[in-house]
């Protein structure tokens, strides 16, 4: 989705003529994604070991026009960053296979990477939050990653 496009509102898919909606049924446009227009092309790296969560989070980021690359373990994330690929945003889970999110975050920060890092995790204990923040994420977010949390961050990255 290019930011300059005037996106048509989209309802749910249907193959018929629309039928007659009963009283009280509200048709809702897909307006929340249309309301957020990014001036710049933002890129994000998503690091999550769970295929399902990657699908959901990638879908959400892409709905806002963020070009997203996903990997399923911490080592792959570190190697990608070490190869010189740059991102505006890194979304990283705490428990990851091969190399965990805490260590991956430390290693990414140790490379001098200063981009926004969101720790998006099912972990919720205070000690886990403190550990993730100490490792170098800017924001600790308990799953799910929601538009309410994501949109202000995207706007900030976009310089709005």
């Amino acid at each position, binding site marked *: 989705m290019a930011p300059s496009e005037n996106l048509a509102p*989209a*309802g*749910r*898919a*249907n*193959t*018929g*003529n*629309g*039928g*007659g*909606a*009963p009283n*009280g*049924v*509200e*048709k*809702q446009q*897909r307006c*929340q*994604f249309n309301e957020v227009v990014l001036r710049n092309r933002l890129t994000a790296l998503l690091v999550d*070991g*769970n*295929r*399902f*969560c990657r*699908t*959901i*989070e990638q*879908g*959400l980021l892409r*709905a806002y026009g963020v070009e997203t690359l996903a990997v399923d373990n911490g080592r792959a994330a570190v190697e990608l960053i070490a190869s010189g690929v740059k991102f505006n945003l890194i979304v990283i*889970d705490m*428990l990851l296979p091969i190399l965990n999110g805490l260590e991956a975050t430390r290693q990414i920060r140790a490379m001098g990477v200063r981009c926004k890092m969101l720790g998006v*995790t*099912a*972990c*919720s204990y205070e000690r886990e939050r403190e550990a993730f923040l100490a490792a170098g994420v800017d924001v600790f977010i*308990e*799953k*799910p*990653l*929601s*538009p309410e949390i994501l949109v202000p961050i995207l706007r900030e990255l976009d310089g709005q």
Partner: protein
Amino acid sequence: MEVGQMQGRLVDYTKSLFMEGFLDGQFLQLQQLQDESNPDFVVEVVSLFFDDSEKLLNDLTMALDQPNVDFKKVDAHVHQLKGSSSSIGAQRVKNGCIAFRNFCEEQNIEACLRCLQQVKQEYYLVKNKLEALFRLEQQIVAAGGSIPMMEMGF
């Protein structure tokens, strides 16, 4: 049954799933991600959730059946299930996982086994509910109608 009645039935059924705590607002967020370019997004991610969850529940059953339970492994599986259930909006499953993690922390095998049963029960309940929801949607589309979007205004 005419399309309008079917749509009304779908709306009522969907509302009941929220009122009874099976689903939360995150499910509505997923529906927002579905559009003409991705018309089957919700069904696809829900299927992925089913596959993912059943594997995790099997892994949990095996992990808790070991003579020396590795609670770190159990916690990792519960963590995954908590993440995916919260990401789809399966509220009761997520809440079950929160309790489960606490008992993993305490290394309380009996309590973990009870939690596993509880989480399995909640998972199969929400699975049945979602499958019924999709059947209602398919009936509406087959009859030429459109699926009304829900708002959390109830």
